[in-house]
């Protein structure tokens, strides 16, 4: 009665090998889930959980305690739970002109900076994408090179350049072009310089990645069909690089809106941006709930347009 089938059955009955086999099979069947689990867990722990903590704080009230806000859930008496949700902080943001103005000013600065980065970055990315193989790598290296120094250091360097007794003013005076220094530091101009300087690589790199894949023969085809270079640019090059423009613009726009260091160091007290307000609420006023509300409002301000854009794109992709 010792058939091969029976031997197999006994092997299966062995608890150890059976467990191992089952685990292997489980891993084989669900490897997609397993692979996806890691990034999901990462995002959950390091992004979503902190978000809810901040959201929770934004719905509390300030109090002199440690931490300096009222708890959301309190056990009042035996078995009676007291949940406190305060939306006053958000109402306060809306009612106080300071916050609304700061948000608008932040948006104005980040939108303008994004446009400036695009105008500056697009031709650079184009030139890199069209240059020869060796030049391409050198140019890309040059774009990435500033990242090897501390960001803070580079902003301080700009202070040295833009100051009244800074390098640029000294040079212009020495050349006799101006008599007294031009005020370039601690104003909106300095903030623009800082933001555009810092974020232009984030515009160039996605644009370059997009243009790298561009079929240059399409430009020849356009010329062949009678399109002058400018027409070719607006009818072929520009539409084909929209993904790069969107990616680069988001990478500049989002961090620029919440930027704190640049307006603080280069703008002095003269340029109101939301990052600085947030910092002040948190540190100077020790008002964690309002600071959290400012952060949540900023997040909504940035995420909603992005979601809208993605929604439109998804619709378009479905349509075609």
């Amino acid at each position, binding site marked *: 009665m010792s058939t091969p089938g029976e031997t197999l059955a006994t092997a299966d009955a062995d608890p150890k090998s059976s467990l191992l086999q089952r685990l292997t099979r489980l891993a084989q069947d669900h490897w997609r889930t397993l692979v996806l689990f890691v990034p999901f867990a990462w995002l959950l722990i390091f992004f979503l959980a902190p978000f809810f903590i901040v959201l929770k704080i934004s719905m509390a009230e300030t109090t002199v305690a440690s931490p300096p806000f009222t708890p959301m859930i309190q056990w009042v008496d035996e078995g009676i739970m007291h949940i406190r949700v305060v939306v006053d902080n958000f109402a306060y943001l809306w009612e106080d002109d300071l916050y609304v103005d700061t948000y608008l000013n932040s948006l104005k600065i980040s939108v303008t900076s994004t446009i400036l980065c695009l105008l500056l970055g697009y031709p650079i990315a184009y030139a890199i994408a069209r240059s020869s193989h060796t030049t391409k790598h050198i140019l890309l290296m040059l774009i990435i090179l500033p990242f090897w120094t501390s960001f803070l250091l580079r902003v301080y360097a700009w202070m040295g350049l833009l100051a009244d007794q800074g390098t640029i003013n000294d040079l212009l005076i020495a050349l006799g072009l101006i008599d007294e220094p031009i005020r370039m530091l601690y104003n909106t101009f300095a903030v623009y310089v800082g933001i555009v300087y810092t974020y232009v690589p984030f515009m160039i790199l996605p644009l370059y990645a997009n243009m790298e894949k561009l*079929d240059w023969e399409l430009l*020849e085809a*356009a010329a*062949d*069909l009678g*399109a*002058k270079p400018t*027409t070719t640019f607006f009818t072929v090059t520009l539409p*084909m690089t929209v993904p790069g423009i969107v990616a680069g613009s988001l990478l500049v726009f989002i961090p620029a809106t919440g930027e704190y260091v640049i307006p603080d160091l280069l703008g002095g007290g003269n340029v109101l941006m939301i990052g600085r307000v947030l910092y002040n609420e948190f540190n100077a006023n020790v008002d964690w709930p309002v600071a959290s509300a400012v952060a949540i409002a900023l997040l909504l301000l940035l995420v909603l347009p992005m979601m809208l854009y993605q929604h439109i794109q998804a619709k378009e992709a479905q349509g075609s």
Partner: protein
Amino acid sequence: MVNAAEYEDRPWLDPEAEPFIKVQSVSKQFGDFTAVDSVDLEIYKGELFCLLGGSGCGKSTLLRMLAGFETPSSGSILIDGVNMNDVPPYERPVNMMFQSYALFPHMSVEKNVGYGLRRDGVAVSEIEQRVQEMLAMVELSQFAKRKPHQLSGGQKQRVALARALVKQPKVLLLDEPLGALDKRLREQTQYELMNIQEQLGVTFVVVTHDQEEAMTLSTRIAVMDTGRFQQIGTPTEIYEFPNSRLVANFIGNANMFEGRVVENGQDHVIVESRHPECNFYVDHGMSIAEGSKVWVALRPEKVMISKQQTADGNTNTVKGMVHDIGYLGGTSTYRVKVGDEHLVEITSPNQLRPKDGNPPIDWDEEVYLSWEPSSSVVLVK
């Protein structure tokens, strides 16, 4: 008027015809590399002219110079009497069909086809009408709203053709027009292309590396190698009377025999070959000094193979042994060993079905090869 009719299909023979495209000692250098080396070329109106050659022979560079994407290092290109050297691509009366088709991926089929007309500022209603006509011609009317990525290779190819033709160019340049299509589609498209060319009377200049494509499509072929033209002629001329070993080998297959001219008669030459040992009696017009070293090219299908000796002596006949047989259905290819080493290739139609009275030629069988005096070609280079 008599002339015009006589030369209708062969304008290059008409001494009074004015070439439509003139390429005058054009060279193109890329750094140290000479892609096109001082070539002269005349193409006539309504021709379907093929530039044929292997990769890197300079054919594409020449085509790109006609389109205006490259400027000649020296020499000039005239189209319809106008010097094109300083004319940018977008002002030339030529359109190109790219090898990759280069369809704009973000535009629908009709937008792609209408692109050139929009650039010329043609009225919207006329654009619509002409695009529709063009799409109807290439049988793609129902695909007008599709994007290129939703089309098959053959459909893309026809969109590219429609886009290049809709502007009614004086010259249509085609870069490997059938290269990306599979074999069946190639054959079908090939004839469509010829029909369209005949219908519209546009001058076609085609670049290809595929000799079969060149042979079926063109009125004339220029065989290119290392930046120069090796031979320019009709498909028949090029195939039957190649002027060099290079051309003979590039277009179709050829058996090549090295020999020495032993008799330079008035209407014939006799070439003596050592490997294999036989004489070639060639009866068409060449006068080559006795004693000079030449090559004789013999096309596989021009050799007759037989188990019986058909001629005496060793002129235009040789004995050998079957080394290999390739049965292709309609034809068979034999490789026959003559002498010690030399393999001669023969293609022979299978006209009779093999049966008892007509046993097929078998491996290792002794056979006699023979050919007509007019079948071989004497080449001096």
